[in-house]
């Protein structure tokens, strides 16, 4: 049941993301920056909220009047800020829902990724509580509806003494003290939300918490344009002697409030079931994954490249535990490792040129060793009959994922060290190498595409040696739905290779590469 839903959703996201890739490029694709946009919108809400708080009167009598005053009399600054505050809050819900659905669609919530998923569940709760307490403060008819319905909802729980809803029984029953409490809540809950967001990103390295400046600027401009065209307004002062009906609801924050009117118990049931189900999803069913990476100390000099490259903070350097003359060694946190293999690709010991002894490397996947990669390369070369001869290094999660029979198929293209490409070409085993990874804006392993691009460009260790003819390498960053594009690019590449002729073997064989610097 979950699988077909996930795959269907993945196709929808893929179509939307590739469209945005074509429009704005992978770096500015908003769907690839949902987490960063969420943080950015949080700061917009925080700054605009502080601004509005300076002009806000927290008393029952004057709360609505003060909001009206700055919305109408000072529309050009405070009114705009109010619209920023409202619409950026709504956008946070949009971004959060898209982020949640995208991670679900891409199956990036099971296995070692459970932590980010589970810690995202309270983020949902705190975001909703932040928004709902904010609406309350305006003390217009919507606020009155929210106040009465929220308190009736809370009163359904058998944990409060006197029903909280009695605070909104009649105009005379409301006190300034209650409003002071609400102001405190509307400040405290977003702070808890920020703390939860910080926890949410603890198990990934280099989390994107700031979108590219261009995207941030355009988001601000879009908010400004909508704030001017459709400013956020109140809905008339609250009057507890009247029922606020009809009332314009914020359907991002309050979609379930009509259910609360009908049956608070049913709503609590829905919320409890949804929370439990969301929190349990990483284990429904659990991800069958490969064994985590292991370190071979005999081949680890503690260089730290694997630590730098790991997208999941699963590696760290600790003092050496053996007698080798190095200060530190890498250790793997098996609970965080997703077995992407990027560490193997970054290890300077991962060189296929070695001929003596077993092809061990400093850090390896037990279920997909570096030695097996070289073995597979030789097997593919031996089987190959086409001309020009091609080696395709393909990611499981990209366009090449369905072609495992004829390619060197890896959990991430960055699991292949650049020396493997060098080996294939400089030994004259193939005429060209195709690297087929995920789309640039949607790398399944977050940083694999970026690291591979930088390695080929000579910008990141381990570099692809300068002697490797770049015209014999084709990089295709395509999603599973872009198989046709992959085929087209490969066909064009074959024509290019045919013009270049066979790759001549290098006359000088290469010894064991320990480290190489950019040329």
């Amino acid at each position, binding site marked *: 049941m979950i699988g077909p839903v996930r795959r269907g959703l993945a196709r929808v996201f893929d179509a939307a993301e590739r469209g945005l890739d074509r429009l704005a490029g992978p770096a500015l694709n908003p769907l690839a920056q949902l987490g960063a946009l969420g943080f950015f919108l949080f700061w917009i809400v925080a700054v605009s909220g502080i601004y509005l708080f300076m002009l806000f009167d927290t008393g029952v009598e004057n709360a609505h009047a003060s909001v009206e005053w700055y919305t109408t009399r000072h529309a050009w600054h405070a009114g705009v800020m109010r619209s920023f505050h409202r619409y950026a809050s709504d956008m946070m819900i949009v971004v959060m829902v898209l982020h949640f659905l995208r991670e679900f669609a891409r199956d990036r919530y099971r296995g070692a990724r459970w932590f980010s998923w589970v810690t995202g569940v309270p983020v949902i709760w705190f975001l909703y509580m932040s928004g709902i307490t904010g609406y309350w403060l305006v003390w217009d008819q919507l606020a009155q509806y929210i106040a009465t319905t929220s308190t009736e909802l809370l009163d359904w729980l058998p944990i409060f003494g006197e029903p909280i809803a009695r605070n909104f029984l009649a105009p005379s029953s409301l006190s300034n003290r209650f409003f002071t409490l609400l102001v405190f809540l509307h400040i405290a809950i977003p702070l808890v939300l920020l703390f939860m967001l910080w926890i949410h990103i603890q198990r990934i390295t280099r989390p994107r918490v700031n979108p590219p400046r261009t995207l941030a600027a355009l988001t601000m401009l879009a908010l400004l344009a909508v704030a001017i065209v459709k400013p956020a307004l109140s809905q008339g002062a609250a009057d507890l002697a009247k029922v606020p009906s*009809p009332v314009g609801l914020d359907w991002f924050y309050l979609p379930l409030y009509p259910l609360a009117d009908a049956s608070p118990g049913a709503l609590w049931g829905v919320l409890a079931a949804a929370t439990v189900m969301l929190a349990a999803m990483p284990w429904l069913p659990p991800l069958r994954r490969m064994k985590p990476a292991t370190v071979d100390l005999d081949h680890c000099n503690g260089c730290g490249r694997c630590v730098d490259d790991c997208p999941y903070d699963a590696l760290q350097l600790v003092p050496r535990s053996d007698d080798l003359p190095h200060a530190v060694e890498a250790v793997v946190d098996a609970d965080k490792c997703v077995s992407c293999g990027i560490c193997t690709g970054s290890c300077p010991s991962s060189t296929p040129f070695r001929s003596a002894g077993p092809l061990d490397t400093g850090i390896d996947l037990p279920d997909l060793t570096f030695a097996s990669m070289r073995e597979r390369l030789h097997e593919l070369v031996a089987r190959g009959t086409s001309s020009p001869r091609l080696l395709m290094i393909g990611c499981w999660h990209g366009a090449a994922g369905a072609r495992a029979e004829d390619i060197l198929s890896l959990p991430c293209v960055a699991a292949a060290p650049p020396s493997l490409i060098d080996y294939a070409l400089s030994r004259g085993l193939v005429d060209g190498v195709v690297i087929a990874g995920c789309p640039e804006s949607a790398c399944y392993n977050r940083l694999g595409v970026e690291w591979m691009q930088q390695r080929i460009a000579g910008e990141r260790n381990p570099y692809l040696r300068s002697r490797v003819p770049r015209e014999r390498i084709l990089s295709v960053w395509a999603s599973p739905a872009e198989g046709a594009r992959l085929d087209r690019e490969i066909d064009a590449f074959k024509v290019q290779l045919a013009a270049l002729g066979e790759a001549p073997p290098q006359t000088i064989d290469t010894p064991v590469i320990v480290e190489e610097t950019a040329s």
Partner: protein
Amino acid sequence: MSAPVSIPRLIGLFAVLAAVTTFAAAFSNAPAYRQIPADTGVIKFSFSHSADRGRECRRRTPEELAKLPPNMRRPLDCPRSRRGIFAELAIDDAVVFSQELPPSGFAKDGPSQIYRRFTVAAGPHTIAARLRDTSRTSGFDRELIETVSVRPGQSLALDFRPEHGGFIWR
């Protein structure tokens, strides 16, 4: 470093972001929701009131008082717990609420509480509110029978305040 994006593409991206923001703004206060039908009002029946004690207070004997520490020598020995309150609300002779409300608190020493909201058609209604908060087992100790005219969209609250004479409209 990614390649610079052309102006038309930036405009296109802005259009996408503006469309999403417009979507957010559009649903931030619409469509309107109607909590109650147009020609109805609401009567809230709510009070927080402590019934009599669970049993009568007993006067301590001089011997009993002498055994107590000086600061605890109260002449009356009163139980902490309260009785429950039996409350009933009838609208136009139809009983819409009839329930025994237990005292709150672990020690059953808090007030009995109720908050209920009833949607009624606009127009005159005879409201009968009654409660029993003493040791009697039948009948009621407090009662209000009154005809009120409910306007469309009006919210009336019927509270119980002994210091104000019993049931009161707020």
